[in-house]
């Protein structure tokens, strides 16, 4: 795949072989965290409220054993300019594009990120193009994506709505070449550092209010930026013991490049179709080195079903009086079960919400699913079958999660690194790099490679 550089000389981060200096890549951003906050505040980003979910917590404790029932807090990221945490991710790229003299910015995304880039570009008086995967070959659009396209146009962007396929990146690069605009890629260090303010706010606010670090921060996981940026921000806020729990909607079994599976999904982000491949193959993006490296930060990886996320969305409206878009509630769904298992003095932060609206609403998505012939019923959420059946839990205690074996993901990451380069053995600095990549020691890497028949020099 051809790559775009977003104004960075990526060669200077390479260490040889499969290794590169990740921290040097992140340090190449010429702004301090204080400056990033200032840049974000100028454009209506950051400083979002952190709510305690009082009624939800009452319900959790009612169904938790003695001494159990952690306190859930929710960071209301829908309060950012365009309605999601993606405003943080876009803000720094767009600012940097403006400062370095670009006329416009381009983003390839079907998600909230497009609206975020368009909103930031409108405020910085830059031109903006958003490239979305939106339709199947019959011209039937995903309601959630159509809404995001509408929102980009509301902010004055040129929107390319494409049919299904990975060639989206080919077209993105063609437009970059044609226009000379800045590549506001999701995966540059600017994008990731923009998210660090979110982790930093959570860490400092929880410590100031409760006199302790958050015990768990649950993060909806797709491309890996949310996990990476949030975890780095928490570290900068001095949170050393906070566990990072990534959560994705389970869409295993649906092919992400399939024209027919495309509209059988009721979630277009926050799902395993991105969460797994981006964890084990982080550099398969539009830039040479991806600054989003979730396996460096993840402590657990949990999967929830589509029906459980819809249930959690309904619960948020019914008990907490806030309607928020479903995909952002992926981590909330897992937190509801996690809270019942943890001690009552623990604090769990659900670190984002997103705006809701036409197309981006459980009724809209379930009505569409019904039209696509997908069965919808109440029952045991483990009977959910992606693309065939959505099961809305029978009761609060039915909410659960599946623990994805993180070690398997880490082994796969190590194995892929070797296979991509077609080498048979590793030098010791490459083994150390891989150990950092998966937050394990060198022995873990060595063992993972031996299992696959590779050696270490």
């Amino acid at each position, binding site marked *: 795949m051809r790559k775009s550089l977003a104004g960075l000389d990526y060669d200077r981060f390479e260490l040889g072989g499969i290794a590169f200096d990740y921290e040097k890549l992140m340090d190449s951003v010429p702004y301090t965290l204080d400056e990033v906050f200032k840049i974000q505040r100028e454009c209506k980003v950051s400083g979002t409220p952190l709510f305690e979910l009082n*009624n939800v917590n*009452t*319900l959790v404790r*009612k169904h938790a054993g003695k001494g159990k029932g952690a306190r859930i807090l929710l960071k209301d990221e829908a309060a950012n300019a365009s309605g999601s945490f993606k405003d943080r991710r876009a803000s720094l790229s767009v600012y940097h594009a403006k400062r370095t003299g670009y006329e*416009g910015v381009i983003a390839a995304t079907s998600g909230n990120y497009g609206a975020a880039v368009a909103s930031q570009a409108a405020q910085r008086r830059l*031109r*903006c*193009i958003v490239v979305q995967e*939106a*339709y199947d*070959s019959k011209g039937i*659009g995903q*309601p959630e994506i*159509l*809404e995001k396209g*509408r929102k980009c*146009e509301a902010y*004055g*962007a*040129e*929107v*390319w*709505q*494409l*049919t*299904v*396929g*990975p*060639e989206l990146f*080919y*077209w993105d690069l063609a437009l970059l070449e044609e*226009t000379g605009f800045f590549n506001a890629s999701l995966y540059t260090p600017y994008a990731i550092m923009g998210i660090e303010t979110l982790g930093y706010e959570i860490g400092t606010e929880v410590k100031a209010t409760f006199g302790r670090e958050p015990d768990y921060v649950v993060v909806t996981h797709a491309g890996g930026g949310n996990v990476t940026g949030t975890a780095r921000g928490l570290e900068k806020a001095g949170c050393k013991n906070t566990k990072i729990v990534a959560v994705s909607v389970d869409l295993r079994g649906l*092919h992400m*490049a*399939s*024209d*027919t599976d495309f509209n059988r999904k009721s979630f277009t982000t926050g799902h395993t179709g991105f969460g797994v491949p981006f964890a084990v193959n982080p550099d398969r993006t539009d830039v040479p080195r991806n600054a989003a490296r979730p396996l460096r930060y993840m402590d657990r990886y949990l999967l929830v079903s589509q029906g459980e996320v*819809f*249930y959690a969305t*309904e*619960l948020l*409206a*019914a*008990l907490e009086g806030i309607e928020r878009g479903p995909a952002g509630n992926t981590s909330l769904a897992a937190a509801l079960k996690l809270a019942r298992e943890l001690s009552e003095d623990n604090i769990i932060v659900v670190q984002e919400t997103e705006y809701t609206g*036409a*197309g981006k*609403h*459980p*009724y*809209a*998505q*379930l*009505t*569409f699913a019904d039209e696509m012939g997908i069965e*919808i*019923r*109440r029952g045991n959420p483990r009977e959910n079958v992606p693309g065939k059946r959505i099961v*809305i839990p029978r*009761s*609060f205690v039915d909410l659960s999660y599946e623990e994805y074996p993180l070690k398997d993901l880490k082994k796969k990451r190590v194995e892929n690194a070797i296979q991509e380069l077609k080498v048979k053995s590793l030098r010791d600095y490459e083994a150390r790099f891989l150990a950092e990549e998966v937050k394990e020691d060198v022995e873990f890497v060595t063992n993972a490679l031996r299992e696959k028949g590779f050696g270490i020099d």
Partner: protein
Amino acid sequence: MEIRKVLLEPSERAEHLPEETKNVPFEARVRGFLMRDANVGEEVEIETPIGRFIKGTLVAENPPFTHGFGRPVRELVEVSRELRREIGPS
């Protein structure tokens, strides 16, 4: 105005795609302002919101947004009632 444009014919598509994707063209739709009067199906040029010009086939004149809130879904409406009943008045 909305135009439609084929970016890649099936024969030009990426390798390793599922058959159902490989057998159809890779297409784009873009909205903008029409440069002259034209009928649906004609080749036209539009000016996009950022002032660029793009050629393609006219799909529709001012097509409406078709996404909405759908129908109230019984399975979820029930959830709301159950939860409020369970938590009770404060």
